């Protein structure tokens, strides 16, 4: 790994720098959580942990958090693909404008987004009113959470799929149709497999962000225990009640579940990548 004749300069400083900052910014805060929980003088005993986690309200919150994040990421994936496709493949008026507003959810304070979404989808709001008349209640239900998380997750999906679509050689699609493939077959067999790894990354990022999202959700969710209460809110609630052990237990569980899910997605991607092109077989080039 550490190659003395590495052609790229500054391998050692770059590696050192990377490890230092990964440690300071990511690893130390996260491992503190772990060590605090596992420390002998910890407020949390194993039995206490089990008790906190098996609490029905807590379990309901976990269910809401992870299911809403998964569903929102899945919807954002479909919408994001269509948006990326439109931006890359078609010439539409004001393309640059649309391209720019995709990133707005990145920049907007999430609380602002939450308040705006809540007021629009409230039963007397701009979209909430017609929806209520149709019998759909969005704000202050789990559906509201999903909408807020789609809003937050969409740019991740668009921004990961867009460059891959740009790079995708359209002559592959032309070749496929010259061989008689239908549009659906072209999507299924050519476009989808090429975009899938990027789509999975976008999905994973949207999901990860959605699980941890707090600001935009609490305004629209209604935060009813057992129905629309998310884990991050429970953590804050426990902190406000000086229940540090409880907050730590929830945080640790979230950390572990999220890590396990992201790891799974990464492994899937690795397997996919190994299946296409980058096999270990030597490249033999002979004159034709």
């Amino acid at each position, binding site marked *: 790994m550490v190659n003395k004749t590495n052609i790229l300069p500054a391998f050692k400083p770059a590696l050192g720098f990377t490890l230092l900052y990964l440690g300071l910014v990511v690893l130390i805060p996260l491992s503190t959580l772990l060590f605090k929980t596992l420390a002998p003088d910890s407020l949390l005993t194993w039995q206490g942990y089990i008790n906190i986690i098996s609490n029905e309200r807590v379990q309901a919150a976990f269910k809401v958090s992870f299911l809403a994040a998964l569903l929102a990421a899945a919807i954002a994936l479909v919408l994001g693909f269509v948006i990326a496709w439109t931006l890359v493949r078609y010439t539409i008026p004001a393309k640059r404008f649309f391209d720019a507003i995709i990133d707005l959810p990145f920049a907007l304070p999430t609380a602002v987004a939450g308040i705006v979404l809540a007021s629009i989808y409230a039963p007397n709001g701009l979209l909430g009113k017609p929806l209520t008349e149709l019998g759909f209640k969005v704000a202050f239900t789990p559906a509201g959470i999903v909408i807020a998380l789609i809003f937050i997750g969409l740019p991740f999906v668009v921004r990961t799929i867009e460059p891959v679509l740009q790079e995708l050689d359209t002559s592959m699609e*032309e070749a*496929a149709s*010259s*061989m008689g*493939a239908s549009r659906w077959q072209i999507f299924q*067999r050519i476009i989808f497999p090429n975009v899938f790894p990027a789509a999975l990354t976008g999905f994973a990022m949207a999901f990860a962000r959605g699980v941890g999202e707090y600001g935009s959700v609490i305004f629209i969710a209604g935060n009813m225990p057992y129905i629309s209460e998310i884990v991050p809110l429970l953590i804050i609630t426990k902190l406000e009640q000086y229940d540090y052990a409880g907050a730590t237990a929830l945080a640790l569980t979230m950390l572990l579940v999220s890590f396990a899910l992201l790891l799974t997605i990464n492994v899937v991607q690795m397997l996919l990548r190994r299946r296409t*092109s980058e096999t270990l077989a030597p490249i033999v*080039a002979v004159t*034709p």
Partner: protein
Amino acid sequence: MSIILNNISKKFGNFSALNNINLEIPEGELVALLGPSGCGKTTLLRIIAGLERPDSGQVLLKGEDKTHKDIRERGIGFVFQHYALFRHMTVFENIAFGLRVKPRKQRPNETEIKKKVHALLELVQLDWLHDRYPDQLSGGQRQRIALARALAVEPEVLLLDEPFGALDASVRKDLRQWLRHLHENLNVTSIFVTHDQEEAMEVASRVVVFNHGNLEQQGSPSEIYDNPVNEFVSRFIGDTNVITLEKHHTDWLQLSGLVIVPEAANSVHIRPHDLEITKSSSDSAATATLKDWQHLGALIRIELAKQGANGSPETLYAEMPNEQFKRLQLSKGDKVALRIRHAHWFDAA
């Protein structure tokens, strides 16, 4: 299958890519669409394929009007300049693609697909690469796989867009020969686009020359080389000496044995091998000074300087076999007599 193009025109914005193209390609021919880049040859190929729609005109395949038919319904095979192999599939799956996407009733079963793909791989002599991915192949191998893939659906016409454009010179040379032999065996009507006149002359049985969206000339390679219809074709195919006609030249040309015929013509094109050189014996002959020469293998290219219209020197090129040149025993600066065996007259407006 025969191809007939009637009055095809195509514009991209204000740019006129093709003007009223009429072309008939009989069954079984191997045709080259030849021209400089931007002349519309690729656009025409894509119109035949159905990848572009003409603004006006008709595309008839086998006598049927297919102008508004989708590429899927045309029975063509298309080979792209940059191969367009499916990079997420193995070579085998690439070739099997056309068979796998057939409607269920026409779709061959797995054993038949296997047999067919291996037969095609053997045809392109690359069966041993069947489980590789396109990234692991050389350019020449990729192009042959692309060809096998296009042939898998048994197209009635094979269209190739600059098939050798992205390859090394030596690989290109081998593939040209190979394509011609393949065409002889399969006898499927084939059209390929190229900007390389040598390639067109070497591979095709018929050459169609384009310039600025116009069809300039079509015919067999020798017809086009021996009888170019206009100045563009003459300059584009092979090397030529261009002399613009003026009073001063007329005398010189007559001395060199050329009878000046056409009234309207104002330029004369002379192929380098149509310029005969002898040692100057009398002053009555058309003369030039030997400036330099280069070995081109079997031929010698001779650089000659002759007095131009207003006293400035003009350069002419002549070619002759190596042996013949040695026998003349010329050295730099010698005066030589020129005789023009054959020339083409054009009215370069």
